[in-house]
């Protein structure tokens, strides 16, 4: 799969290109907006919003007007404005710096899944829990769960590697796209609500000081 990394700063671009290649992607890099627009169309674009020549938002708009290529926006500002603008301009997802590979790969896969629905059934099954990422639905014992967006994202993340402990930071990054949500126990509130909807608190196990683990119940 061909990925175009549009990033002017070498300090980010170098390890990013290196890491993605190791993951088995074919990676090309554009250091400016101009280069990005002139490059042959890849399978996915990783687009930094802060570019030296053209505003990343313009590049995004231009790319979208030409093709349906999946675009993941990279921004240093986790502010709501950027997110809305990025996504309204046709980007498929965004990551906020400082992001890591795990998060980035999860998003790349999720975007590819969404944009290539012919890829076949990729729903997750964990015991009696069934999650359909494309339809964004989850059901338990065949009974559909009424989940909020964040609850669904959280459950999907935990179900992506059942039995493994997922760290709080990873949860914050992948579900809330931030390293910090304020001291408001947002994660705990959502976890508690999710447990209630699953009917058995043991479905989601809290590993103190580490994170959360999905523990299938029968």
């Amino acid at each position, binding site marked *: 799969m061909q990925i175009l990394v549009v990033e002017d700063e070498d300090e980010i671009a170098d390890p990013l290109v290196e890491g993605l290649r190791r993951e088995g992607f074919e990676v090309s890099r554009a250091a400016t907006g101009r280069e990005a627009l002139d490059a042959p169309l890849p399978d996915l674009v990783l687009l930094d919003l802060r570019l030296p020549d053209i505003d990343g938002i313009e590049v995004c708009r231009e790319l979208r007007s030409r093709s349906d290529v999946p675009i993941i926006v990279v921004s240093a500002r986790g502010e709501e404005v950027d997110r809305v603008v990025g996504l309204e301009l046709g980007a498929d997802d965004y990551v906020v710096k400082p992001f890591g590979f795990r998060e980035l790969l999860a998003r790349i896969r999720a975007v590819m899944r969404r944009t290539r629905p012919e890829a076949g059934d990729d729903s997750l099954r964990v015991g009696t829990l069934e999650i359909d990422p494309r339809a964004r639905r989850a059901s338990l014992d065949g009974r559909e769960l009424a989940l909020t967006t964040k609850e669904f994202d959280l459950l999907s993340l935990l179900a992506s590697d059942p039995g493994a402990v997922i760290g709080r930071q990873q949860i914050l990054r992948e579900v809330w796209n931030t390293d910090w949500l304020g001291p408001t*126990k947002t994660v705990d509130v959502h976890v*508690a609500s999710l447990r209630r909807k699953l009917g058995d608190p043991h479905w989601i196990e809290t590993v103190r000081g580490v994170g959360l683990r999905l523990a299938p119940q029968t």
Partner: protein
Amino acid sequence: MRRRLLVSYLLIAVLVLVLLEIPLGIAYAENERSELTDKVERDAVALATLVEDSLEHETPVPQEVQRTAARYDAATDGRVLVVDAQGLRIVDTAPTGSSGFSSRPEIALALRGEIATGTRRSNTLGTDLLYVAVPVASSGVVHGAVRITYPMSAVNDRIHRYWWILGLIAAGVLAVAVGVALVLARWVARPLARLERAAESIATGDLTARVDVAGPPEVRQLAETFNGMVAKLDVLVRSQDEFVADASHELRTPLAALRLRLENLERDLPESERLEVEGALAEVARLGALVDALLALARADRAEAAPRPLDVTAAVDERLAAWSALADERRVRLEAESDPAVVALVTTGRFEQMLDNLLANALDVSPEGAAITVSVRPAASLVEIHVVDEGPGMSAGDRVRAFDRFWRAGRAQEGFGLGLAIVERLVTADGGRVELRESAGGGLDAVVTLRRAPRDGESRPSGR
């Protein structure tokens, strides 16, 4: 401002009128009186000349002179009295009981050879009388005196009428002055009103507002200074915004690079040696979180307020529902005590953020089986929201310090100790306040006071 100008203008007008009209009136009265005195004195001297011969030779006053005196009396209401050297009455056009006048001061003066003039009140006639007594003398010898007493009523009437006219003129001038002052005050205050409007829109966050430099030099100067100040403020706020954006970028970019490189490194390491890199990655995440937290605080510091009416009771119920699952897990009861539909002024989304912070703190200190009570208490113009826990509480000093940045309660906790600092800034931006009190049970009573919406249930446009 306009009222002050108006009062000053009118005060000056009144002062000028008083200073001009009162001396004018007094001068007019003086003039009228002295003219009358002069005239009466001339008449008295003329009469004295007529009776001089008779008095000198002690012969009866001729009939003709007596008729002249009577005609004078009839024509002018002036009473003519002629006395001899002993002060005994010779001629009197309005005779009364007594015939000896030597004891009257003006007669006595005249008999000593001096002219006496003056006014006195006559109770019998009910008016002021002008009297003039002149001696009848020839070659240094006084033979008698002539006195004319003259009622002042005609003169006084004229003087009164004059004062009335002056008063009417003053009233007219004042009426015109009020009109002119109103126009002037509006004219002078207009640039200031423009300045005020600009200041208001700046206070509501529009830093592009400027004032037209117009009007008198002082106001122009003020407008220029004001515009300069706002321009500086605008630059400062912009540069702060830019700093926040730059800091975001400048701090996050190397952090992202560091994280990516560490993760690349981690994959090359054997499983046994990954722990160190995991630790380093955790620190990177912590730094990232700190950057986010500081930026959140910086944004809260200059949080723009656009308070709108919010049904606080409904918002409390909604948040308590969201928190109920977590509270259940911790075996903590959440209770609400509130009147239906209490509406407060708060910027959208902020109330929930505040309440979440306070609930998070309360839940942290609540032991199993305890309750957290959220109550909404409306007062006349304010709404108090209380979040009361049954935890161990805090000392009075800690209750104040808890709002400082990076303050954390004794035990180490997750987070950076910014929650209450941010809550305080957000509440203050909406014109409210937040404080920690000791609850009746010894726990904490976190009180958020917000302004109540002008009329509950009625929405009001914010800004203008």
